[in-house]
């Protein structure tokens, strides 16, 4: 009786690896800060229209270039538009562009990278060649070429369609901007995803536990699903976090240069570009979007670093 009492039921102290990784992430203060800021960004982006005090297009020509006040927290720009509302809408643009870009670049990268990593040999050599070629082309050049060559013809085609059919769908050409921005950014970003995935699959394929599973007669689809994917996903998650931040900066720099999202749709990049012309007189016009971009970029890099430490067992101490 006493012995039984001493032993007792074994306390269930098991923790899953996901919980373990999360605990490591939660212990990292900067990563938590990054996580909170990213969460705030997503909430703002998701509920933007309900949060903004004004519409992002509303012009109040009597209140142009106002400094920050109770009515306009971040002030107004040269057309009297509320900058806070525009920054909030800019967050939407940034999140939509970043997610779509990362999504499409991951799909392309996953496909090409896993083919290279899985088959190896000549197929892999071709994949590596393709990655190197793509990475060697200056990304700005690709985006400018795509914009200059494709955008006018697409817009013309849409105008013609609108004239022909009168269908409202063809009237709004704003989404052409978005598609070209996602598309060209995915085209320049996929090689990085492909490289990471290729390397992961190659290394996991040669792991002893894959061999041990093969020795047990586990089928190939099951090995891929239960052994290869869970063991290769860590760096991909880290990549996603870092790539989201990078994509936002990239989108801003393209919009800044006038090849990204076009006004009047607010993007932090085109707002910075606008603000730059008048910043000596009205610094707040530049400060608000620039600060938003800086904070979000830092938040993503904190989160990415934290995820890298939490998910990479080699860095566990």
């Amino acid at each position: 009786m006493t012995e039984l009492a001493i032993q007792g039921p074994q306390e269930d102290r098991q923790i899953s690896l996901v919980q373990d990784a999360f605990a490591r992430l939660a212990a990292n203060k900067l990563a938590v800060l990054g996580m909170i800021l990213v969460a705030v960004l997503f909430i703002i982006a998701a509920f933007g229209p309900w949060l903004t005090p004004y519409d992002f297009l509303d012009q109040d020509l009597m209140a142009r270039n106002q400094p920050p006040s109770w009515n306009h927290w971040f002030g107004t720009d040269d057309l009297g538009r509320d900058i806070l509302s525009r920054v909030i809408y800019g967050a939407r643009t940034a999140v939509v562009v970043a997610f779509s870009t990362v999504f499409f670049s991951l799909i392309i990268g996953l496909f090409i990278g896993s083919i290279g990593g899985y088959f190896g040999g000549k197929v892999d050599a071709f994949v590596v060649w393709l990655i190197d070629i793509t990475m060697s082309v200056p990304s700005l050049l690709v985006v400018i070429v795509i914009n200059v060559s494709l955008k006018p013809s697409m817009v013309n085609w849409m105008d013609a369609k609108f004239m022909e059919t009168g269908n409202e769908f063809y009237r709004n050409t704003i989404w052409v901007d978005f598609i070209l921005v996602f598309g060209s950014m995915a085209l320049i970003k996929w090689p990085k995803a492909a490289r990471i995935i290729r390397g992961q699959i190659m290394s996991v394929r040669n792991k002893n536990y894959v061999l041990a599973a093969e020795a047990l007669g586990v089928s190939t689809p099951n090995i891929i699903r239960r052994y290869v994917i869970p063991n290769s996903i860590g760096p991909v998650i880290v990549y996603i976090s870092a790539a989201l931040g990078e994509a936002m900066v990239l989108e801003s720099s393209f919009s800044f240069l006038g090849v990204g999202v076009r006004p009047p749709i607010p993007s932090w990049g085109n707002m910075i570009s606008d603000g730059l012309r008048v910043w000596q007189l009205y610094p707040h016009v530049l400060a608000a979007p620039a600060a938003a971009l800086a904070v979000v970029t830092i938040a993503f890099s904190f989160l990415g670093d934290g995820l890298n430490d939490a998910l990479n067992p080699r860095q566990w101490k």
Partner: protein
Amino acid sequence: MSAAEQHKRTEKILEVSNLHTRFKVRDGYLYAVNGVSFSLDKGEMLGVVGESGCGKSITMMSLIRLLPPAAEVTEGTVLLDGQDISQASSSEINAIRGAKVGMIFQDPMTSLNPFMKIGDQLIEGIRYHKKLTRVAALEKAAKYLELVGISNPDHRLTEYPHQLSGGMRQRVMIAMALIGEPDLVICDEPSTALDVTIQAQIVELVKELREKLNMSIIWITHDLSLLAGMVDRIMVMYGGQVVEEAVTDELYRAPRHPYTIGLLKSIPSLKTEAGSRLPSIGGAPPNLFAEPSGCPFAPRCSFRTDRCTREVPPLTPLQAGESDPLHRVACWVDVQQQGAAQ
């Protein structure tokens, strides 16, 4: 002993003849296994010994075609329990792996999937082979964990590999290999990565399980001294070939191949004088980038003759009248006579 008993005793679980495996490399092939033939009786334990890269692991992996993509088995037949599996399709091979042939690997630290609970990994094989439900399979897994000496098995099933020590993980690997109730278990240096006390425990465990479950075992190692008192028969490999094969005691007592003799001399013993140098075999392991044209050991052999570099010596039984009728050696020179003459 009745005739039936006699037949049962000599029934073969495994018969391998003239196995060749090669690897495709940058310019040409690496000939890893060159005409290996051996057999294994039911319930027998065979030790396979040789230096790194001599083809001992690749030979055994070739049996169930557990080879890297660059390797191919070019020749040879493998009879597993009388059935030829050398031409089996990959799904047929998959059904044999784990169910008829179990494998225990060298490095328990990296042979378990860090993302799966011990229980789920243990039942991985039997769920496919035996079509058991998860609950029934887990019950069986707990039984096998207990069998390999893991206390509190029900709790261990819910743990992840990183929560277990190296010795425990090797026990889990053994349970994993045995749970499919295979007739043949191939142990690829299962104790090498462990420290000496745990190594002794694992060796004892395998010996004990062999008695209990009546399995046939192939134990691959580079440590000849480990095999004494453990295996029934020893096969010595060199350069992708079997150079000598004999019952354990006979091999220790009367080795016939110069390589085996060298190996035995290089085992430190208590009689070795303090401060004296341990004998070693001079030279480097053979280059396997060409098909062998002579005895692979010839360049390092002190008994070398002209014939040794021209013709590959076949593995032939010793003359009648020897104490072990199964003692076979691949050498052109009668080393014992030569040794006496020298």
